C-alpha cells in the first residue's frame, strides 16, 4: 500500500488539518474545473469509474439511443446485396492474388539466370 505523503509532525493537529483541507480543496476544484471545461475529461472519468482507460470514446452501451439496432426491413435486402457484392469482391481479390503469384513464379527463373 502506498503511504500518504509525510506530514510535518512538528505542526499542531489544527495546522496539519488545515493544510490537508487546502490540498483537498485544490484537488476538488481541479476536478470540478476540468469537468466543467473538458468533455473528454468527463468521458474518461466515466470510463475510469467502469475500470476502463478507453480514451475519448464513450463506454459501450452508453451512447445516446444505443439500443439494439434492428435495421429497418427495407435495409435487410440492401445489406444482403451489399454483402453478396463483398463476397464477389473477395473472389476477385483471390484471383488477383493467384495471378500475382503466377507472375512472380514466372519471373523467378529469369531473375535467377540473371543473377
Amino acid at each position, binding site marked *: *500500500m*502506498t*503511504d*500518504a*505523503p509525510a*506530514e510535518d509532525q512538528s505542526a499542531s*493537529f489544527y495546522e*496539519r*488539518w488545515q493544510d*490537508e483541507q487546502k*490540498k*483537498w480543496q485544490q*484537488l476538488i476544484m*481541479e*476536478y470540478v474545473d476540468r469537468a466543467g471545461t473538458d468533455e473528454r*475529461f468527463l468521458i*474518461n*472519468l466515466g*470510463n*475510469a*469509474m*467502469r*475500470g*476502463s*482507460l*478507453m*480514451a*475519448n*470514446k464513450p*463506454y*459501450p*452501451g452508453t451512447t445516446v439511443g*444505443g*439500443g*439494439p*439496432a*434492428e*435495421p429497418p426491413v427495407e*435495409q*435487410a435486402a440492401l*445489406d*444482403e446485396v*451489399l*454483402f453478396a457484392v*463483398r*463476397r464477389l*469482391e*473477395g473472389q476477385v*481479390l*483471390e484471383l488477383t*492474388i*493467384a495471378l*500475382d*503469384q503466377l507472375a*512472380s513464379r514466372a519471373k523467378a527463373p529469369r531473375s535467377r539466370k540473371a543473377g
Partner: protein
Amino acid sequence: MDDIPSITTEAEADAYLHDLAHRRTKLEKLLTLLDSPGHAGSGATPSTVVHEDGTARLLRIQPEAAPNQAGAPVLFISAPVSRYFVLDLLPGRSFVGHVAAAGFDVYLLDFGDPDTPTRFADLDYYVNGLIRRAVRQISARTGSDSIAIVGYCLGGTLSLLYSALYPEKVSRLALLTTTVDGDVKGGIPWIAHCLGVEGESYDNPRLVPSSTVKSWFEMLAPGTNSLAGRTSDLWNRLDQPVDRLRDVQTMATWVDDAVPASGRLLAELYRKFGPGRNGIRRGTATVADREIDLSRLTMPVLSVSAAKDAIAPPEGVDVITELIPHAHVVRLPGGHVGIVAGRTADRLWSITTTFLSTGEAADVA
C-alpha cells in the same frame, strides 16, 4: 461515506489525518491516470497494411529492430467479436511484437469494425474467405507454401477449421484458449445457450450490437462488472503505481471495447458447436458443407488453456488431445486475457515462440 470520527487522542488525530491524506493521494493518482493518453484502439507495434478485404485488414508487424527471419511466416488471428489489439496491447506488452522481435515475419488479421452488411457473414466467409485469402496473400508475399497460424479464442476456432480444410498450407498451429467441447459449462457456446444467442436468426440476421456482445462477456465474470463493483475495484487499485494501473486498465479497455458481431456467424456457431450439437468434439462440424476432419491435422499443434478462464474453460480446451492425439497441451495459471497480455504473459509468449521454432512445447516456468 464514513462518518468523521470523534477524536479524543493524539493517535486518533494522526490516524485521521493520515487516512485523509491517503484518500487524497488516490484521487490525485486518478487525475494522473485520466490525463494519460489511454488506449487509442490500435496496435502498439509499428505495422503496415498489406492487404484489405472488406472490413478486414492484414497487418504486417514491423518492430523497430527486426532481426533475421526465424522460420515460416506467422499469422495471428484474434476473435472477430473483439479488437485485434489484445495481441498487440502496449509497447513491451505485445504478443506479436515479442514473436516478431524473435525474428519471425509476423502478420495479424484485423477483422475490423463490422458494418451492417457484415451481419450476413458466416463461417464460410471467415474461413474460406477472409482467412484463406490472408494466407494466400502471405504466401504470395513471402514465397512460403505454408505458414504458421496462432489463433486466439474464437480466432482459434476459425484457425482450427481452416487448418483442417487446408492442412498443406499450415506448418504449425497454435490454439490459445480455444474451446473444442461446446458441452462444457461456461464459455461462449454455453453462454450463448443461456443468454439466447440461439435466438439469433441465421436467415434474417442482425448485426449484434457491441453492447450486447460485451454483456455476454460480463455474464462470464459476474461480480466485477457492475458499475459499483468496478468503481470499488478501481478505488482499491489506486494504491498501486500508475504504471501498473495503466497495464491493468488497458486490458480492461480491450474487454470494454467490444465490436458488433455478425448475427449469422453467431447463429451458425451456436447451431454447429453449441451445447447439444458440439460439432467439433463429435466430429460433425462442417464449413460450407465441407466436413471438418481433424485427422488431417498432421502438422505440430499446440493448445494452451488458462486455469482461470471464464470465457473458454480449460476443461473444454484441453480435451483437444482426444481429437488430435499429437497436440501439445499446456495449461497456464491465469485468465483468458491475462495469459495473453497480462504481466505474466511472457510465459505464453516464450512457449509459443519455442513452438513456432521447433514444433515442441517447452514450458519455461
